[in-house]
């Protein structure tokens, strides 16, 4: 399951579809699990009439959490040492997200990856890096 340094080289890529046609209910599930009940994520009336957005939108942390699935699927359970992202665009209900991780370095028992998640229009919604232990 865990990655071996000898089987990795710089430039290797891993891709995964994180979600297709994101549903408002999944955003509600994330609000409930994380405890972040900001109405801009779940309350369409507040978000369109008061906050000034076209609809509710996903927590950045939901996108980070979904993208984390690609990383842990690649590096194996419990291997992640660092994971950091910038939220570069908002994610709305109906979005389909694809994540890609690219190996940038393999050294000293660690693999370093660039990670990027894009929506169905090719707009990057999350960009970051990760580091994990390898055998």
């Amino acid at each position: 399951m865990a990655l071996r340094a000898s089987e990795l080289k710089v430039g290797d890529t891993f891709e995964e579809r994180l979600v297709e046609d994101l549903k408002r209910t999944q955003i509600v599930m994330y609000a409930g699990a994380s405890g972040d009940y900001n109405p801009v994520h779940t309350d369409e009336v507040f978000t369109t009439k008061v906050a000034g957005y076209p609809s509710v939108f996903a927590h950045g942390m939901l996108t980070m959490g979904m993208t984390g699935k690609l990383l842990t699927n690649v590096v194996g359970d419990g291997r992640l040492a660092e994971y950091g992202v910038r939220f570069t665009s908002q994610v709305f209900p109906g979005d389909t997200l694809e994540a890609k991780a690219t190996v940038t370095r393999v050294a000293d028992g660690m693999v370093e990856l660039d990670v990027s998640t894009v929506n169905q229009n090719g707009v990057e919604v999350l960009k970051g890096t990760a580091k994990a232990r390898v055998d």
Partner: protein
Amino acid sequence: MAVEQFAVEASHIMMFARAVGDGNPIYHDEEHAANTEPGSIIAPPTFVQASAQFDPDYGLRPKIGGEGWFGSGGKPTGAKPRPSSGGASGGGGGGGGGLHAEQRYIYHRHPKPGDVLSATGRPGKTWEKQGRRSGKLVFSESVTEYRDQNGELVVTAIGVGVRTERPVDQK
């Protein structure tokens, strides 16, 4: 954010993993998890964000009874928006208000059921930038340390929140 006791529980991990769409059995199946390298259920990478549940003063959760909550009820908003405490993100919020700009975690180990974490936060840097789509942006960083029941560091979280002058232009 300060959280005195964040008891990590298997059912909470299961619900969190479902919410992020991760069906990996290490997040819900004890028997499976026993045969993995970690040897037990562990939390998914962004789970400590849920410490907001254990922050008694967390600003993005309606108070019991709902009084003062700014989401919609009979009217589009129940109250004036107020500055949010934003939890470990050091931001969060909406409208011409706060958004989450960046988040980074350093894992000293991965939390697991039975851990009782505490979180202490401290403010980090602040800086400003002129945004193309939302006017002046004010960024502020916060650093949160999650320690276990033995005082050992488990996860370090660095969040950056941004307050925008106006809602982000969607074009």
